[in-house]
């Protein structure tokens, strides 16, 4: 009987990262292929539609003179065909989170669910190095894919932006474009990974990660984004389509006036303001235009807003905090993993 077993090596060389990278890639190759396929389909749609849009816009631009009925028609045709985002807009907005979560949730959850962690975490590389390579590979992959996607969506939006009809800061548009898209994909990924570790099952992890992502996106869109920089204010009644309105109120002599006072003032002349903030809508069925009445009597309407010109600063601010949050979640996952024990 030969005793070939080697003596314990006091200085253990760590397994090189490229080898671990191969492991991560091979294990999640099918997820990658699926994501690429999905993005390719959507990307193809955006490409085709984007080219059509450009043709229509170019036709409008080339049309002279600018005020003729023919050119108005060209404008109308461009505006109506491509002006509203609709369903595709919602899909584009949700896509980074969905792809991120679908990529992230199975990484730990499937190992725990199928029991293959008993193989993966007892190999020479150890669980921390294995997990780090899986998470880094997945995060980079997801970020790169969605960065390309975000660029494509921004390209798609370009004519609309140039025409001044695309509200880039709107909640259903902003997160799918530019660098916000890869940021939100990272958030979906990190939430998926952490949920996977906590639930130990793929489906509950996916569901909860998507729910958490949606809540975060809702929070960002409804509350945070409009305050990245102090909003600007204007007393003008003409608001641009592309600016994001944050708030609106009436002042008199420089001081804010409560809605109750506005309403009582208007009721005295038999009219009132409806709930919409659109300053130019006249009240139907009354001889007095409430807005004009208030303006003539020294009131001013102040609107706080974020201008479209702040799009790129906001993109980087959003990417910054979302990516930082994602890294924090991934770090927390690794920390928990180190302590996690198997039953």
């Amino acid at each position, binding site marked *: 009987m030969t005793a070939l077993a080697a003596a314990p090596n006091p200085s253990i060389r760590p*397994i090189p990262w490229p080898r671990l990278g191969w492991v991560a890639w091979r294990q999640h190759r099918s997820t990658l292929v699926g994501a690429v396929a999905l993005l390719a389909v959507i990307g193809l749609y955006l490409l085709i539609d984007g080219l059509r849009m450009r043709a229509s816009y170019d036709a409008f631009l080339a049309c002279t003179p600018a005020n003729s009925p023919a050119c108005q028609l060209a404008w109308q045709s461009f505006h109506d065909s491509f002006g509203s985002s609709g369903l595709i807009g919602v899909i584009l907005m949700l896509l980074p989170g969905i792809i991120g979560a679908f990529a992230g949730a199975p990484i730990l959850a499937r190992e725990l669910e199928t029991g293959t962690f008993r193989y993966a975490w007892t190999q020479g590389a150890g669980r921390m190095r294995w997990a780090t390579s899986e998470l880094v590979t997945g995060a980079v992959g997801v970020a790169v894919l969605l960065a390309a996607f975000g660029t494509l969506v921004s390209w798609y939006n370009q004519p609309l932006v140039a025409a001044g009809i695309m509200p880039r800061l709107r909640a259903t548009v902003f997160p799918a474009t530019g660098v916000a898209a890869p940021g939100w994909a990272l958030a979906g990924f990190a939430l998926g990974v952490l949920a996977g570790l906590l639930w130990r099952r793929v489906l509950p992890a996916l569901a909860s990660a998507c729910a958490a992502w949606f809540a975060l996106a809702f929070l960002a869109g409804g509350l945070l984004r409009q305050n990245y920089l102090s909003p600007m204010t204007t007393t003008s009644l003409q608001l641009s389509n592309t600016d994001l309105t944050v708030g609106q109120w009436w002042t008199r002599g420089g001081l804010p006036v409560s809605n109750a006072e506005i309403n009582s003032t208007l009721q005295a002349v038999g009219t009132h303001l409806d709930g919409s903030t659109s300053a130019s809508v006249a009240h139907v069925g009354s001889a007095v235009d409430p807005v004009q009445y208030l303006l003539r009597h020294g009131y001013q309407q102040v609107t706080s807003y974020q201008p479209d010109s702040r799009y790129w600063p906001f993109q980087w601010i959003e990417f910054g905090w979302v990516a930082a949050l994602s890294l924090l979640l991934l770090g927390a996952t690794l920390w928990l993993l180190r302590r996690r024990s198997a039953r």
Partner: protein
Amino acid sequence: MNIIETSGLGRRYGSSWALSECTLAIPEGHLVALVGPNGAGKSTLLNLVVGLTAPSVGELTVLGGVPAGSPAALDGIAFVAQDMPLYRHLSVADMLHLTRNLNRRFDTSLARRRLADLGISDKRRAGKLSGGQQAQLALTLALARHPRLLVLDEPTAPLDPLARHDFMASVLTAMADDGISVILSSHLLAELERVADYLVLISRGRVRLDGTIDELLDLHRLLTGRPDTCAEAGYSIIESVTSGAQMHRLVRLPSTDAPLPAGCESRPVGIEELTLAYLREVPAPPLAALTGVSR
């Protein structure tokens, strides 16, 4: 050199102790059979040894003083868990590649040779192999790492008798070839005498038997006699059965040359008999474990 050494080792899940006061010193070069009822703590001990879980209390070192779960320990220990965890959608060749990339030491030619001898094709998906083939694949991946300790958690449970024989023959041949130590948990008491030479019996989270099988058999005797003429001289009684006027008592001697009580017929017991008696034993205050100190 002790392949597994523990001192007061315990693991708690919530408020219940899966394993407690476990003190072992298992020398290398043996095939250790880890025996006990379901839920007794066998899997917990194995999970601690391979680093999948950490002790709640006490100490555990492997491979001659290396902390369990450390890179050196992971390097020298190969684990085949219950249900042979493999990635079902990967091919056999992929599994080989994967294992090679996750370890410092991997003997690809040995693995290929073994799989060829067993008739397992490189291209098949791991999930499509039969139970016996999956077991042999998992074992091949483990042995190709040239570990010093092979840990098997009920490896033969899903296998038919022929597959079981082939599996154990592979494990034992690796012992003969490479001098590896093996610890395996099993319910197959009938096989114990043939394959194992060291026994650890765990019941309700405590170690009840621990030592080489030769030593353990030397320390137990079955005494038969009438209650009035045969007294067990104060030795620990493991099991006592009365049939008619005769009483049969399985006793544990404090040492191999302790005198046998007069007035009793005594015979040695087999390992299967001994193990069953301990498994049936009503919990008594923990016996001082016989530590397998090499002589």
